[in-house]
């Protein structure tokens, strides 16, 4: 008993620095943000923000009020990010899985290829999305040059404004995101016992049959975790939209992170911005909950 307690205290001392860091970097700012979301904190009350008028849930009603501009913008941004996720996550996953299956085979130079595959993932976002912006630019962009050359289009298309903007961001994001999923899936694949495949082969199972009955089910826990993680990151999507499209919040490519940035820090409507951020926190918590539940299920 005494030993146990002493162990606990020692353990506590070890995690104390991390706890303190968490407290100051995460817990206090989050709680402050929640507090601000109940205040009418804007340009006029900025300097005495602690005494800004308390408005209860009004900010929350406003951001979901389709009769108000801020409500329309926020709700549309939620839909935009869902759409973005519905496109980016499955496409990225399929590419990642296909490449992971390929890389799981033995062939000469496999290690080098595995390293190369990670390149898009390890290059900084700001650099790569700027490059993608150039690629999609109407006048000098490679995409238009290529399409013009092969005769698919007669005049340059505008990619970064209007209906095609989402498509260009999705393409860039898939390119940037799939290698990481691929890496996770590859490690999952390597954890599947070779004996299972050998047994299936003896029974004369086809490639498809093996994939369906062994690979897919055995890979499911990894798939599930990676999809949940992708969903969480998806809701945070910011860099690609900000760098490629310039942070526009007026159109079909405005995502919540951009709207929050704009509302809180450009328009100085901190109350509304905080309410939006709290909603995003709840969404992410929901996915985290899924993640924890599914892991618990797995243990049982």
């Amino acid at each position, binding site marked *: 008993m005494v030993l146990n307690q002493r162990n606990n205290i020692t353990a506590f001392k070890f995690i104390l620095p991390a706890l303190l860091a968490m407290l100051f970097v995460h817990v206090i700012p989050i709680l402050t943000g929640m507090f601000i979301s109940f205040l009418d904190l804007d340009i006029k009350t900025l300097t*005495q923000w602690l005494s800004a008028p308390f408005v209860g849930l009004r900010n929350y009603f406003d951001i979901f009020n389709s009769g108000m501009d801020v409500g329309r913008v926020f709700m549309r941004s939620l839909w935009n990010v869902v759409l973005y996720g519905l496109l980016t996550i499955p496409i990225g996953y399929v590419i990642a899985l296909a490449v992971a299956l390929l890389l799981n085979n033995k062939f000469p130079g496999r290690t080098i290829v595995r390293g190369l595959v990670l390149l898009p993932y390890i290059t900084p976002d700001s650099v790569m999305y700027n490059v993608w912006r150039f690629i999609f*630019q109407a006048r000098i962009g490679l995409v238009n040059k290529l399409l013009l050359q092969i005769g698919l289009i007669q005049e340059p298309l505008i990619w970064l404004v*209007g209906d095609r903007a989402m498509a260009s961001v999705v393409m860039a994001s898939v390119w940037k995101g799939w290698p990481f999923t691929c890496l996770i899936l590859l490690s999952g694949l390597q954890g599947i016992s070779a004996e299972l495949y050998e047994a299936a082969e003896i029974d004369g199972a086809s490639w498809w049959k093996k994939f369906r009955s062994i690979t897919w089910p055995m890979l499911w826990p990894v798939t599930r975790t990676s999809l949940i993680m992708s969903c969480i990151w998806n809701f945070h999507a910011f860099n690609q939209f900000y760098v490629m499209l310039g942070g526009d919040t007026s159109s079909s490519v405005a995502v919540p992170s951009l709207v929050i940035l704009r509302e809180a*820090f450009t328009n100085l409507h901190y109350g509304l911005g905080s309410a939006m951020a709290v909603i995003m926190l709840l969404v992410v918590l929901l996915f985290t909950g899924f993640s924890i539940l599914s892991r618990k299920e797995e243990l049982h």
Partner: protein
Amino acid sequence: MKRIAIVLILGLIAVGAFAGGSQEAADSVDELGGTITFWVMPNAPDETHMPWIEEKAAEFYELTGVTVEYEIVGWGDAWTKISTAVATGEGVDVFQVGTTWNPQFAATSGLEMIDINEFGGKDAFMKANYDSTTLDGTCYGVPWFAETRVLFYNKDMFEKAGATPPKTHEELYAAADKIIAEYGEGSAIALAGTNAWDLIHNWAIILWGNGGQMLDDSNEKALLNSPEGVKAMQWYVDLVRNGYAAKACAEYNQPQADAAFINGNVAMCYMGPWNISNIEQENPGLNYGIVEPPKGPKGEASFSGGSNLVVLKESRNKAAAKEWIKFLLEEDQIVEYTSSLSKMLPSKKDAYNNAAFDTDRWQLFKNVLSYSTAYAPLGVWGDIENAIVTEFKGVLIDYINGDYTDSTVKTHLDAAASKVDSALGKE
């Protein structure tokens, strides 16, 4: 164990709260001395800007014993940085703000009130620039320099196309027709598009030339969706629809539009005095001229902007901060800073008597500035500008998506007007 953790956490929160509360702004010192922090935007290329500020800071130290620590803050970061300083009362003593920012930050009550008589009185400054330092008639800043927009044109392209520099909106279209006949579609004028935060200025010039107004005289109601407003925005969009400007302009920001002109690809662009130093640096061989912005049906118009210097209310060295502003506004400093460094225009009237401004080009800018219009000095100006820019972008996006009709502009301007009205309600 849990209890210890909770007690610890609560204790820390309490310590944090009290530590924050115990700091009070010290009163400003009467005697000059100490250090002040000065935030300034990149008004000139760093290679010339930074040595100049360092030299002037050293001179100021000799005179007053005050050390000036400066930081060059990009326009992109400045808004957030300043609002943080205003909210916390920390980080800076004296800083530059754009003219439309001045009343907005004044509305936060984070800026020090200014007695303009200490700085030569309000009549010493261009009226539009002085007005921009005020909120409800009280002054919260000192005008530093002014800027306005004129039409830059490429002399070689104009000559080859047989066009003459336009004096009116119609003449601009006529010149553009000749230029695209010679150089092809999109070569007549470079425009800013959806990526330009300052998109509103381009339309404002056309709006005022058409006799329109953004707000009524008492700043209580939006007038921007008037027939003049609609006509002005249609005129702007038609520059693209008629092929005078490239469709790609829809994705440009202002520097991209400027670059298209400076590189010699496009024959015209609405630009400001600071672009002259861009041309000198990037394409000194460009054979260009400047003319006043072409007149609209109701006459001449341009946009008046610029920057002011303000003092943070919580500054611990306000006296020194004000002294630094006075020093920067002395004739030697202001003439050198505007005429040779930033290529902006002094907002102090008597500076124009200096021989440095005795050229046709400076006189043209000065003349344009004399009839330029500034935006209303309002605390909610940010919301107003945001509403207009958002809807302006909406018009361009509709055009790119092929949804542009005769009623597109009116629909978006009506939406902007209703947002502006609700913002004005909060003023």
